[in-house]
Every structure is written in C-alpha cells, then in structure tokens.
C-alpha cells in the first residue's frame, strides 16, 4: 500500500469521480426518459376520454366549432340524458335497464354454467371430461363476429329476434370457455383430498359443490364474474343485430344510432357514453387487484 504515490491516488480518485459522474449522468438520462414516456402515456390515454368529457359539457349548438376547451360550461346534456329530455333518449332508462339486465344475466349464467362444468370435469373427474374442455376451444376457432349472420337467422327462426335472451345466449356461449380455463386452473390449487374426505364423510356432490367448492373458489369467481360482465358491456355486434326496437335495445346500440345522422345532438351522445362507461370503470377500480390476480393466475405462472 505504501508504494501508492500521491499521484496515483489522485489519478484513481479522478477515475472514480468520472465513474460517479457517468453513473449520475445515466441516472438523469433515465429520469428524463421515464418522465417523457410517462407524459406520453398520459396524453395518449387521456385525449379520447377528454374529448368525450369536453363535448358532453358543451351546449348543443357549440359543438361544431374548433376549440379544445368548452367556451361555455354546461351540464345540460347530462341532465337531458337522466331526464330522457331528447327524442333520441326517450327510452334511455329502459335501455340502461336492458344493459344491466343483460350484463347481470350473462354474469350469473357464465358463473353458474362455468362452475357446474368445471366441478364435473375438474373435481368429480368424470370420464372423458377432457373432451368437453377441448370441444369448448372450438368456440374460439371461428370468431364470434363471423357467426353473427347465421346466429341472426337462427334467432329469427326461433322467434327470438328482438329479445334480450338471444343476446344473453350468444354471450354466455362465448364467455364460458374462458371461465372453464380460469376455474380449472385455480381449482388445481385446491387439493382433491378435500373433496375426497367430504365424500367419505357422506357429503353428496351437491353439498360438496355448495359448501366446499364455491367458497374455496371465491377469488376465481370474482375474476370470472367481472370478466363476463365486462364482456357483455363491451359487446356491440350481437346487440346491434339482434335488438332493433327502441324499447328492447341496449345503450351501445342506442349510442351508435346517434352516428347514423348528421344532425344528432352530440353533447347528449357523449353524456350517454360517459354514463354508460361509468359502471364498468367503477367496478374495474374496485376489483382491480383481484381481477389482475385472476388474469395472472390464468396466464403466466408457467
């Protein structure tokens, strides 16, 4: 150590401080990069949403002028939607109720059919059960939108055109395969011995399903339920095709009808859009962690 001259020490400290500076420069670069990217992400995400809010807050005649900020603030449009105050909106509450009914039924039926099927295949281990899981995959070979025309024809033959249940049936058929996968995957974390011992104690399959399977599966049920509800709330094509009368249609169909005319009250359209978007956004933020957990446990644990 004593052989290190003062000069060498100085040199090494210079090297060190240069290294420090390089590290700090990298740190600042990284900070600048993440800041820029964060701002870009915010702008990208917010612009279409801001557009909705801005137009909904403008008075009716003001929409067709180029500005990026409402000149006059007005909540007239929201009031108009809630009181059905425009002829475009005369059935708004009925349509909103239709959407809720449809979403609720799709959620309940997807959960019911999904858990029954997964219970039979995954817990009771019915012979050839894997055939059912694999056949369900067939649902995804042909996209739902490609089956819309035959489905429309079939529903007309059944006399179910313009009936909410035709849409519910279609959506449940498309949502259940996903429900199986999440439920089966989650079910694997529950030892089958739990069911076995209940069976030895004399529990019937129905008792095992109700008292053991459903309570233990609760987290997966939340994930599947929110998924089914969001699917119904997002869907447009089947609702548009199958529901045509003003009193049987759902909000998305009514919303898209605004676009079919050049003279529509755009601020009312955007207010309707925001009111329709509010429930899933609220549900998403309420169940965010559990939904993410549902996705993750389905997806990528490897």
């Amino acid at each position: 150590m004593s052989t290190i001259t003062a000069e060498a020490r100085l040199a090494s400290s210079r090297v060190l401080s240069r290294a420090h500076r390089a590290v700090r420069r990298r740190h600042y670069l990284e900070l600048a990069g993440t800041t820029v990217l964060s701002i870009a992400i915010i702008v990208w995400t917010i612009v279409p949403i801001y557009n909705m809010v801005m137009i909904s807050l403008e008075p009716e005649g003001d929409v067709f002028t180029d500005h990026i900020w409402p000149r006059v603030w007005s909540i007239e449009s929201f009031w108009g939607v809630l009181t059905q105050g425009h002829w475009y909106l005369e059935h708004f509450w009925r349509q909103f109720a239709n959407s809720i009914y449809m979403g609720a039924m799709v959620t309940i039926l997807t959960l019911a059919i999904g858990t029954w099927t997964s219970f039979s295949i995954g817990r009771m281990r019915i012979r050839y059960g894997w055939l059912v899981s694999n056949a369900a995959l067939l649902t995804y070979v042909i996209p739902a939108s490609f089956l819309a025309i035959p489905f429309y024809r079939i529903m007309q033959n059944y006399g179910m055109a313009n009936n909410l249940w035709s849409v519910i049936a279609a959506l449940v058929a498309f949502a259940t395969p996903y429900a199986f996968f999440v439920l089966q995957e989650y079910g694997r974390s529950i030892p089958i011995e739990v069911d076995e011992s209940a069976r030895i104690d004399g529990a019937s399959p129905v008792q095992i399903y109700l008292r053991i399977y459903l309570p233990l599966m609760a987290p997966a049920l939340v994930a599947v339920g929110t998924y089914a509800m969001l699917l119904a709330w997002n869907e447009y094509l089947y609702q548009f095709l199958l529901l045509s009368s003003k009193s049987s249609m759902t909000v998305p169909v009514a919303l898209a009808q605004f676009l079919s005319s050049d003279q529509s009250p755009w601020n009312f359209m955007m207010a309707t859009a925001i009111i329709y978007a509010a429930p899933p956004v609220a549900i998403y933020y309420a169940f965010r962690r559990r939904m993410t957990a549902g996705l993750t446990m389905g997806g990528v644990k490897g």
Partner: protein
Amino acid sequence: MSSIGQVLAGPGVRRQLRRAAWHRAPRGSELVWALAFLVPYAAVFLAFVVYPIGYGLWMARDPSLYPDLLANPLYARTVVNTALYVGLGVNVMMFLALVLSGFFMRRRWWIKALLPVFMLPWALPAVPAFVSFHWMLIGEEGLINSLLALLGVQGPLWFHDRALALGSNIVAYIWKWLPFWTLTFLAGRTAIPQEIYEAADVDGADGFRRFTHVILPLLGNLYLVCTLLCTLWTIGDFTTVALVSEGAPAYSTDVLATLGLHYSFEAAQPSLGVAAVLSALPVLIPLTILLMRALESREVQL
C-alpha cells in the same frame, strides 16, 4: 374478448388426465350428478356454438359463391385491408406492450401510480371509446384537427383518405387493447424470479443484454401465444371498424367482419356475406393449430 386464461388450457388437460388414473371416475348416483352438471353447458354449446357454425357452413355451401366473391372488387380490397389491419395492429401493439411492460416494472412511485391511469381504456366500454375516436377525427372540427390547428397545421380529413382512415382504425384498436396485453406481459415479467435478474446483474448484463438473453428467452413463448391469440381476435374484430371509420370512404376500409354484414344486410346477400367471412378459415385453422402447439410447449418454458 377473452383472456389469457386459455393460455393454460393445453397442458392442464393432459396433467389432469394423468391424475385421473389414480382417482376413480364417478359411478352410480355420482355419475348421474356429474352428468347433470355437464348438461347445461352441453346444451348451450350445441345450440349456440355448434348449430350456428353448422348453419353458417350450410349457408356458404354453394361453390359458385366463391368465384362471385373473388370477382368482387370490394372483396379483394377487404382482404388487403384485413391483412393490414391485423398485421399492423397486432404486431405494433404486441411490441409496444412488451416495451411498456418493462417500463411498468420500474420502481418509481409515479410509474406505479400511472398504471391504473394507463388501464383506463381497457375498463372503458368499446362503444363509447370508439364513438369518441370517430368524433375526434371527423371533419375539421374534431379535437385532433383543432389541436393541429393550434400548432398551425391544417389537419387532413381523416375519413376521406383510405390510408388515414385505416390508420385511424388501427390506432383506435391499439388504444383500446394495449393496456390488456401490457398487463399480461407485466404479469409474465413479475413471474420471472428475482434471482434470475440478480444473477444477470452479477454477470454484468446491461439493459439490452438482459433483455435479449434473459427476458426474451423466458417470455418468448408467452409473446408467441399472445400474438397468436390477439391475431385470432383481431381478425374477428367488428366494433372498431364499424364505429371509427364506418368503412369510409366508400367501403374502402372495411375488414372481413364488417364486409360480411354489408353483403348480408345492405346488399341482401347473406350467403355471400357468410362465404366472405368463412373464406378466412384457411388462415384461422392453421393459426389455431399453431396456438395449440405453442400452448403445449408452454410447460417447457419458464
């Protein structure tokens, strides 16, 4: 829209088969219950999946439909549009999702706070979101052109030009679904054990090398599976094109899903419409087979 839970289906089914050999399959009254639990799904599957597929194939059975289709200039252009829409939409989105998932792995507090904001488009229902996109781009008064005017740029008429209209559809589609895929990759990245990152750090791997030598091999199969799934869903996407560009100008941005409906309802040729969408089967079937293969090899990865 479905989710990543399916990613797991492949090996799961097989693992279950192996295990089923040890447990006895249900007999007697238990078998009756197991079957009873399966009946609802079997009914839904036959009535609302198998029957429409069969009906669709039957509607498109006439071989003379296909020369008609090929002779139709609208069809050829739609095939090109669909290829562009799917090719660009899926690959750009997947790449962005992979990059952004790395960004959201960072530990800064504002990046953590940004994630829920970034997820907003996914929670927002599709119809309001696309109605807003349509309205943001339409005419000279749309928000985007107003913003461009602030910068002194005269914005184009987005839906009067085929390339711009197609691009608008793709951007709107990416906006809506990018959060979902980012979240999926984020889940994939968090599933990589921290020790692997630390080992790479000790070995002196910098950001780029860590990406190519650690993350890419580990996430490669997930990336492939997600790309295939997303391709299948994007081919079937109807809502985006139907609401953002509405096929404008003059049906020149239609994709197969929207063209099928135009043929069926505006041209009153439902069989031609079904033939148009079913002409995608030669692409859909190999994609599905590839997807199943990728799902099978998933267990080996990670």
